[in-house]
């Protein structure tokens, strides 16, 4: 029954012949990939880089052949994994960090913000509506002030405070804690809120809209409070120096969230997930810009506002910043830097 036979050395199955013929190539591809994964593409010599796509294609064709002609599962699995690794090293790798940053500043950031213009306008209107409502509420009944602005945030700035106290909050030098620390705190806190507003947009924009309205309400209430004591313009100056940048950033964050929410709710011709992906990638680039804007705003607020005490200077800096941002985002620029000029980001 279980008799033993002597055999010639010829391979019995295709897989053996196949392995013998191509194993060296696979090994080499494996080694190159391991080097890229462990270090980087720069660890490869020129010859290796030139060989990489060829080795990848030959491994892919080996995979097809192995699947069709051999029953050795270890072989097929190995080739599958090898080809997958190679594919993502060849097709899926992002640019180098410096080129990404350069392109982001030169093109992607302003473009992504430009693409949000409708939502930006809507968010601006929402904020203004909030401001007007806040003003109107507090001017008709100061009691509203307490419900709009939490005690912790008011910090003594409420309708019962005298004009002198209020003036001190605008021009006084901040007690305790260095200016730079304050700036850092403001930056991190505001950025976190902005990212949050963006992420919430996913829920059909409703939370984002509420957040913007509330933001406007507090602003309106504060403005009304200071205006009633005759400090309206001074307060506006105190606010403008950093607020032009900060409010702009918050409006953009809201707009980015809104873009996603509307894409999810009204996908148009695309499938819902595709529409969300296109909106999400573009809006996320704008969000990276928003965080940078908030960094500037934090510096202006934490340091600039305390050291610059004259109203004219405050207005000047604030408005200059605003004009700068507007020019950066919306001034027409040369189209198409190379073949990638119109990619998905602008969609």
């Amino acid at each position, binding site marked *: 029954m279980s008799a033993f036979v002597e055999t010639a050395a010829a391979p019995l199955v295709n897989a053996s012949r196949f392995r013998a013929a191509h194993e060296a190539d696979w090994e080499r591809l494996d080694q190159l990939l391991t080097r890229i994964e462990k270090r980087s593409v720069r660890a490869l010599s020129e010859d290796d880089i030139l060989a990489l796509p060829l080795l990848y294609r030959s491994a*892919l064709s080996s995979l097809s052949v192995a699947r069709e002609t051999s029953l050795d599962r270890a072989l097929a699995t190995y080739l599958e994994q090898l080809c997958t690794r190679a594919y993502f090293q060849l097709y899926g790798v*992002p640019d180098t960090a410096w080129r990404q940053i350069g392109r982001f500043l030169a093109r992607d950031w302003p473009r992504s913000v430009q693409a949000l213009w409708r939502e930006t306008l809507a968010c601006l209107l929402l904020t203004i509506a909030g401001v007007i409502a806040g003003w109107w509420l507090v001017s008709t009944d100061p009691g509203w002030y307490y419900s709009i602005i939490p005690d912790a945030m008011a910090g003594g700035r409420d309708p019962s405070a005298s004009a002198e106290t209020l003036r001190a909050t605008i021009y006084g030098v901040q007690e305790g804690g260095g200016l*730079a620390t304050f700036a*850092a705190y403001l930056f991190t806190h505001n950025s*976190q809120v902005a990212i949050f507003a963006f992420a919430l947009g996913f829920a059909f924009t409703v939370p984002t809209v509420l957040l913007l309205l509330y933001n406007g309400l507090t602003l309106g209430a504060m403005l009304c409070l200071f205006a009633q004591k005759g400090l309206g313009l001074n307060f506006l100056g105190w606010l403008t120096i950093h607020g032009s940048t900060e409010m702009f950033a918050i409006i953009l964050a809201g707009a980015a969230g809104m873009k996603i929410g509307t894409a999810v709710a009204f996908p148009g011709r695309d499938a819902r997930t595709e529409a969300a992906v296109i909106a999400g990638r573009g809006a996320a680039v704008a*969000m990276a810009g928003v965080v940078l804007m908030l960094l500037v705003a934090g510096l202006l607020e934490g340091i600039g506002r305390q050291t610059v005490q004259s109203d004219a200077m405050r207005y000047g800096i604030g408005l200059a910043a605003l004009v700068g941002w507007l020019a950066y985002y919306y001034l027409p620029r040369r189209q198409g830097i190379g073949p990638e000029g119109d990619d998905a980001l602008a969609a």
Partner: protein
Amino acid sequence: MRWRRKHARKAPVSLRRSFVTPEGVDLRLELASAGTRASAFILDILILFISLILTTIAIGLLGIARANGEIFMILWLVGAFMLRNGWFILFEMGGRGATPGKRLLGLRVVARDGGRLTGGAVIARNALREIEIFLPLSFLGMQAADGAADGFLALFALCWTGIFLFFPLFNRDRLRVGDLLAGTWVVNMGRAKLGADLVAARAEQPRRTFTDAALDLYGIYELQTLENVLRSGQDEAIVTVAATIRRKAGLPDDGDDYGFLSDYYAALCVRLERAMLVGRRREDKHASAARR
């Protein structure tokens, strides 16, 4: 008992996804399971916390040495912000497409359409983490801090945020909300070595021969299961499988289980491969071995 059998026949949920390269070959990507991804996230969070604590101590020592509290605070605030938001984004934007936690577990973030992983996609998938992880956590914290004051509201909020937290479990592709929005998914990047050629290993030496009847018992599925048994090399499995095959084929026990199974594997592989090459692919033992 009809329903029970039906239930048992249901194929297990597969995480393999067809993915055709521009060259026209299907790579059959394997998605990472929810458990692996959760482990990767926990690993990342652990590394994050440890590095945060270590840098705090390091900066603290410097700060005390220079008696400058302000720089300490600034570094800490900005550092914590960068760690919380930048850790995931910067690592995934790098060439590896994976945070250290993912890398340890052999995962990688890739674009669902197979294209480049853009910065926008990485930022989008990680910014959404705010509502997936940190929002539920802050509600939990609120719950703990407030006691039962707003318990009902907090509970409701927790449920709502729980939808996002457990979102990956509710869809086929294990997508987070962030993945959904960024058009990415997380795949397993296995790095197995090429296993030895089991047939070639037996080709050099005298082998057992088997009758056609003995070899007609099984199909490709059983062959590959046998391959797994031989490669894993677990004695118990080898003894059991060898006994089963001997019983079915009516062969006597010759005391060398591993040798017997290897020879049977080689013979079965040759036979099935020949049949396959002339167009008679026999998927498993239920398929008929007779010529059509």
